[in-house]
């Protein structure tokens, strides 16, 4: 199959390329950008006039487990509709990804769907119980790109240190969400809003104590650590200092923490029940600045599809999380616009930079994923940067319909609409062909 994407504004954040050009694709590769050979005869031509042609998005945190069977199909479809061509899923599936067979099966099923590349994180400990290590070598051979406890704590610092030592023996990355378990039991961020609403709080110290501990263990073990979903200004500062010291750490932030604060909880809106909890304005500002200056490498959707029964509950009883795969591009662009960044700078946080976080774990794909290069893989997102849309349940393909950015409660106008998504040179999503209001 040969595809020609015509007249688009081609933006490759990694190289800084930003120009009107045609892109020629043959099989799973980009064969030409700009000077397309005269004898290139496409089977299909995509008219991209007025649109941006960018690398497919790489999302470092998307859950696929809920709700119910068929979730993988719907959520990978949602990824494609959101322009996401590679996603990393944490190991807290049911059962947890602690055996190579489970990883094989998941990767096999995802490949058959050919909507989005799936990169699982393996469980750091068996059944995520935080006690015994998993078979990390076998899990890596099965396709795991790192090891994580998801939201589960490690039993104690000795076990965490051993896990980091063992992982670093082979150069495997350990992905941790920094949160002290005993301080993390609340349902909202500690502060004036939680106090006023009578909601139990999670203090900033829950994040900073965990960061101090893990950073010290990085010094001791030399392990490569990725911090998942920072939530506080103090957390950003600790990561900034660790990076300045030359420690092998990286970090990401969720679309929710980047755009919202605890004030948005309003009158106990359970769509704002999130992990980590939304913090204060100064935290959001620091997260935005940290993402802009590179302290935080990547913006993630933190996609967590949650059914109605688990959200139509009092705030504290509602299951934390929100849908996000289909919002990632728009919320990256929104942040970029508001921060006066170029399109290329905003896109880098959801394309080339997350690929750098994954590093060697991607193997040969790491050379071209998240980029647009001749000879590289054709993972591409074509979007209309000037189109605006509003999030409603009907516009989402994900089974998770709950999001803080729901038009009815937030009125948020979302910039940018995905028109086409290509994964390995194959059309995984096309707005024109897709049924429903999402095509508009």
């Amino acid at each position: 199959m040969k595809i020609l994407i015509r007249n688009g504004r081609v933006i490759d954040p990694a190289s800084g390329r930003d120009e009107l050009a045609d892109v020629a694709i043959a099989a799973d590769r980009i064969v030409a950008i700009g000077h397309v050979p005269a004898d290139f005869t496409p089977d299909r031509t995509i008219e991209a006039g007025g649109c941006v042609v960018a690398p497919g998005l790489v999302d470092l945190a998307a859950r696929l487990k809920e709700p119910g069977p068929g979730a993988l199909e719907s959520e990978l479809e949602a990824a494609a509709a959101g322009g996401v061509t590679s996603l990393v899923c944490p190991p807290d599936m049911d059962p947890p990804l602690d055996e190579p067979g489970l990883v094989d099966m998941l990767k096999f099923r995802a490949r058959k769907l050919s909507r989005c590349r799936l990169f699982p994180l393996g469980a750091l400990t068996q059944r995520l119980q935080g006690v015994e290590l998993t078979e990390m070598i076998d899990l890596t051979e099965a396709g795991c790109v790192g090891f994580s406890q998801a939201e589960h704590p490690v039993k104690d610092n000795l076990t965490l240190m051993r896990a980091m030592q063992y992982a670093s023996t082979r150069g495997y990355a350990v992905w941790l969400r920094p949160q002290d378990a005993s301080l993390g039991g609340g349902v909202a961020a500690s502060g004036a809003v939680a106090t006023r609403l009578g909601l139990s709080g999670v203090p900033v110290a829950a994040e900073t104590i965990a960061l101090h501990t893990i950073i010290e263990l990085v010094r001791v073990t030399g392990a490569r650590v990725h911090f998942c979903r920072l939530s506080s200004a103090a957390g950003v500062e600790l990561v900034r200092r660790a990076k300045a010291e030359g420690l092998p750490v990286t970090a990401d932030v969720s679309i929710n923490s980047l755009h919202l604060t605890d004030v948005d909880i309003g009158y106990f809106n359970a769509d704002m029940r999130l992990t980590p909890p939304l913090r204060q304005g100064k935290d959001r500002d620091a997260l935005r600045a940290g993402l802009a200056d590179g302290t935080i490498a990547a913006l993630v959707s933190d996609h967590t599809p949650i059914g109605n029964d688990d959200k139509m509950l009092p705030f504290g009883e509602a299951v934390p999380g929100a849908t996000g795969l289909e919002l990632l591009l728009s919320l990256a662009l929104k942040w970029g616009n508001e921060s006066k960044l170029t399109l290329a700078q905003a896109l880098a946080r959801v394309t080339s930079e997350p690929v750098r976080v994954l590093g060697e774990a991607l193997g040969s794909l790491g050379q071209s994923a998240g980029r647009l290069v001749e000879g590289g893989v054709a993972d591409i997102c074509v979007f209309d940067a000037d189109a605006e849309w509003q999030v409603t349940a009907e516009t989402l393909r994900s089974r998770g319909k709950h999001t803080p950015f729901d038009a009815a409660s937030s009125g948020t106008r979302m910039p940018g609409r995905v028109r086409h998504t290509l994964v390995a040179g194959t059309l995984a999503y096309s707005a024109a062909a897709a049924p429903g209001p999402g095509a508009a």
Partner: protein
Amino acid sequence: MLARRNPQLNGHGELIHLLSIEGLPRAVLTQILDTAGTFLSVNDRDVKKVPLLRGKSVFNLFFENSTRTRTTFEIAAKRLSADVINLDIAKSSASKGESLLDTIANLSAMHADMFVVRHSESGAPYLIARHCAPHVHVVNAGDGRHAHPTQGLLDMYTIRHYKKSFSNLTVAIVGDIVHSRVARSDIHALTTLGVPEIRAVGPKTLVPGDLREMGVRVCHDMREGVKDADVVIMLRLQNERMSGAMLPSAGEYFKSYGLTEEILALARPDAIVMHPGPINRGVEIDSRVADGSHSVILPQVTFGIAVRMAVMSILAGNDA
């Protein structure tokens, strides 16, 4: 993000649900207090009934047990001639796995006109108000740590009754503020009604510094907290806080924050002592103070009936 309209008020600014004192204008609070005044005389009559809620069904939905509060709501509704149905849901539907909203849908189908809700989760009455039929009114009878607005209002009625005006008062609230829905409702009501000095008194585990953002002065010393106060509101110390990581013991708490005659002597000579009940004698309050001349703890209970009658009659008169 857009701020959603205050769910307690209709388009004309009239009260349709009572969920929290926060966000209610002073005029609405004053209307409730004035209306309560007219009901006090009903309570003194031989026939203690007025027909304002005749033919209406009031459902007391107590997802968390509270005999006392439920009884006062029941008496208030009956004095307004309403039909009262008490549902002790802590022991029935919820334990059978029925969801909160399914319970509400079922009861709405039974043509309820008003839900009086107590729930252990902060914000639960907001969820109910958002999802019940439009003609149904919701009264929050205590949700988690968040709010207990009728208690707040009866406290305001009591203060106004004895002090006549709110404009020059110093009010000290003593005890477990962080876990107290009564304290939150009192603070919002006192702030809205213009009380210039509100003090929150207790150890740092029970009175954290961010309470200052609610407009109160935080005092960790009992003497400083009570000094020259016109009103001292003592909060009940729940059993589960009396030992463990919040406090070492009830005895040490009483020594530091118990209200004794000696401490009360630091307040103004005409100070009143209030307590939402039930009181723990010898834990937060000395018996001599609880039973003494400054105590208005029992009048609070009487006023509570009138205030709840006022709230229910005002709600019944307003349409969504």
